[in-house]
């Protein structure tokens, strides 16, 4: 890590760590009687640890000029490790909360392990920890390769990667102490939010500067999506988290948004988090790693354009479908519903573009589980976006809302789409970045694929069943126009499905563990790639490229 930085860059890192530690101290001392003080202290200690690591390595030889002008892959390697670590953590907590819903005593009478605190630890762990690290890591890889330019500098990639992970850590440890803004997927308190803004703006600038240095005349589709992801997440995050802390020495804050407007802002944020965090960025992965692995050209450039602008435009208006039949004015609900229906077209166009790209390569699916991960992901993407548009229709939503159907829908997207495309991408990225011939074991990739697929199917079928049963039980009347079931009757009916969901989640977790072991073994044991470094393994200006020769 330190060896990939010049002496001056190492000193810049130390300066940044010093400033951060001072800011954290400024919070830790006045906030010492509050959980914010614990966080302040935690950051001071982490900065001290990182500074110590760097100080011990100030004399490690600097990278050669050759290395300095090449692609900068060191942060990608660390990012892969962080992605898999968060995957295991987040999914383990997921299995745990799933089990708690079937066996509530699994909290062991501790406050930190109650359902209300573990559930956000799960969602933050998988969405931001696992998903976010996968996005940052692959974006560093893809933007360099498709721009034929190294990252714009060598300090900010680390700042973004570690800064983002610090945010995730503050979030998860905060929940354990009972801190939350009570906004779903935006639970962390004001100081963590401010920190994320700083990190995210740095990310944006880094990405733009790298694109600006590109040696290709056009910007590849994947980069449009990464850019949309970065820009929109910044806007969403800032607007939804506007809040006033009760004092600077306290973690507690109050949102500036009142009443139903707060609900609307929250679900404008929530839905676009799904769109730009869990969709746009992963579409970027799909647009790079799928054609790469299949070795096929993208089916249609024009379809890419149509779906990109369709998705960026329509998603923005769809958030109110989370608030059907609430105090939100009816007209806002109508807009949310109709935009959700129109949104299906660009969504399916993206999935279709991916599947049509497979023409001429379908036979590869039989032996290549990595490619299968990505193709099945595209299918789940199509499936969950169809389901989403369907559920956005008010009449359908009156059945599905508040039920496990939503949870089933989320996981068709989260497991079937987000997680599968990530694993497929990582299995393509890892051998390439570490310059290995292939993954250590194709059999383990195959095993992971089947564990993930069966886990996903068990999970979503269990939740579809339980959700529809719940929804129907809540609206069934006797001939006397009285409710036919009490709420507890519906809970009793859920029990077998909650057990099934736990089993499905456990299989999925097992797959992630198998994948992590395989990645570890690839890095440690796989033979190095024999092929001479491919022409595309180096930035444009260092290589006599075939294009130039032609």
């Amino acid at each position: 890590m330190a060896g990939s930085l010049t002496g001056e860059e190492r000193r810049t890192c130390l300066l940044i760590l010093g400033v951060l530690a001072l800011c954290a101290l400024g919070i830790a001392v006045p906030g010492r009687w509050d959980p914010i003080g614990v966080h302040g202290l935690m950051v001071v200690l982490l900065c001290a640890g990182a500074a110590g690591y760097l100080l011990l390595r100030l004399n490690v030889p600097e990278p050669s000029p050759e290395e300095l002008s090449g692609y900068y892959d060191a942060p990608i390697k660390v990012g892969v490790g962080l992605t898999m670590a968060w995957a295991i953590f987040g999914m383990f907590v997921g299995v745990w909360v799933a089990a708690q819903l079937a066996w509530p005593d699994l909290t062991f009478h501790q406050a930190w392990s109650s359902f209300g605190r573990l559930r956000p630890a799960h969602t933050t762990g998988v969405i931001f920890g696992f998903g976010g690290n996968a996005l940052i890591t692959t974006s560093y890889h893809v933007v360099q390769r498709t721009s034929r330019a190294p990252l714009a500098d060598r300090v900010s990639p680390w700042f973004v990667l570690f800064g983002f992970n610090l945010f995730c850590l503050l979030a998860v440890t905060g929940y354990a102490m009972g801190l939350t803004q009570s906004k779903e997927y935006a639970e962390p308190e004001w100081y963590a939010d401010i920190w994320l803004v700083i990190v995210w703006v740095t990310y944006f600038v880094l990405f733009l500067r790298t694109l600006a240095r590109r040696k290709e005349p056009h910007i590849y589709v994947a980069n449009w999506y990464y850019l949309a992801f970065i820009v929109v997440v910044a806007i969403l995050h800032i607007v939804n988290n506007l809040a006033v802390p009760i004092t600077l020495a306290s973690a507690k804050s109050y949102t500036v948004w009142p009443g139903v407007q707060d609900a609307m802002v929250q679900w404008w944020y929530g839905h676009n988090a799904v769109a730009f965090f869990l969709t746009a960025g992963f579409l970027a992965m799909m647009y790079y790693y799928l054609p790469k692995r299949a070795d096929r050209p993208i089916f249609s450039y024009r379809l890419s354009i149509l779906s990109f602008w369709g998705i960026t435009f329509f998603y923005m208006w769809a958030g109110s479908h989370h608030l059907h039949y609430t105090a939100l004015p009816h007209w806002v609900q109508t807009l949310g519903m109709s935009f959700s229906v129109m949104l299906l077209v660009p969504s399916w166009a993206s999935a279709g573009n991916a599947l049509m790209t497979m023409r001429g390569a379908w036979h590869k699916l039989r032996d290549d589980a990595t490619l299968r991960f990505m193709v099945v992901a595209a299918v789940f993407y199509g499936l969950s976006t169809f389901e989403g548009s369907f559920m956005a229709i008010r009449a359908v939503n009156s059945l599905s809302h508040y039920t496990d159907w939503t949870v089933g829908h989320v996981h068709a997207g989260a497991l079937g789409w987000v997680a599968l495309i990530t694993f497929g991408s990582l299995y393509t990225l890892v051998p390439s970045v570490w310059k290995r011939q292939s993954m250590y074991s194709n059999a383990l990739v195959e095993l992971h694929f089947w564990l993930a697929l069966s886990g996903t199917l068990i999970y979503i079928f269990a939740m579809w069943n339980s959700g529809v049963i719940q929804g129907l039980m809540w609206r069934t009347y006797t001939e006397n126009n009285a409710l036919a079931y009490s709420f507890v009757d519906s809970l009793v009916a859920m029990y077998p499905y909650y057990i099934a969901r736990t089993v499905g989640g456990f299989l999925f977790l097992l797959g992630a563990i198998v994948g992590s072991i395989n990645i570890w073994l690839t890095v440690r044991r796989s033979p190095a790639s024999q092929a001479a470094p491919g022409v595309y393994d180096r930035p444009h200006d260092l290589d006599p490229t075939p294009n130039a020769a032609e």
Partner: protein
Amino acid sequence: MSKTEVDPATGEQTTGHEWNGIKELDNPVPRGVLIFVVVTHVFAILWWFLMPAFPLGWTYTRGLLGIDQRATVEQAISANQAERASWTSAIETSSFDQIQADESLMAVVKDTGPQLFGDNCGACHGFDASGRSNYPDLTDGDWLWGDGSAEAVAETMRVGINTSHPESRFAQMPAFGRDGMLASADVRTVARYVYSLSHPEFSTEENLESIAQGESLFAENCSGCHGAAALGDAETGTPNLTDAYWLYGGELDQIIESVHGGRAGHMPTWDERLTPVERKVLALYVHSLGGTTP
């Protein structure tokens, strides 16, 4: 720079762009997608005309169908109430005896009672109303308050026990040990006497003397509420201590616990949370669980 070529697998033209080996075909947007765009947009535009859809300053377009979610809900509620009126008004105006004599009304009670009980009472009393530690069994025929008639149950529900309702029932067993009214040895002694009332086999030769001591302690301290024979009083909610029904447990150490720390169970008032009709249905339902025949 960019040079289009023909993709050998499909015979289609590429755009000539290339990124790290990835190329794109120059295919047009398939016609199916365009049709799909038209269909969804036509649907959306139609829907905007029919439904409330766009803001206009302080108001909004109301839509040709004139549908409004608030009005729809209100209509649905009053339609449902109108249909239920066939039995709610009869239950509201009839006395308990009249309802019990009317088979069709009792059928409604049996049909709706379990759900009301499940949603409001089961969490404490158990979903089959058989109670558990600290929460009385409502099916055993042993009543703290009244005779288990529907009227008595309805009254308990209306005002609650140990609540802030102005007419609340109060049932408070003093904390004799903790508040220093009895020495801890005396607490044990009186508890042994109480225990012997429901466990005759406990009155062995060697226990007789201490039980007699306990009896006199009971007469001094307890009989005022529980009655001289410890039979309790359903007017004041004081439990009978001689039977096999226990709210807090009939083992010796549990009785000691009751006498040492006192007891005051909390039964919520349902005066404002349930309608009179719902309370009547529930009272009849609880009554019908067989709790009147011990």
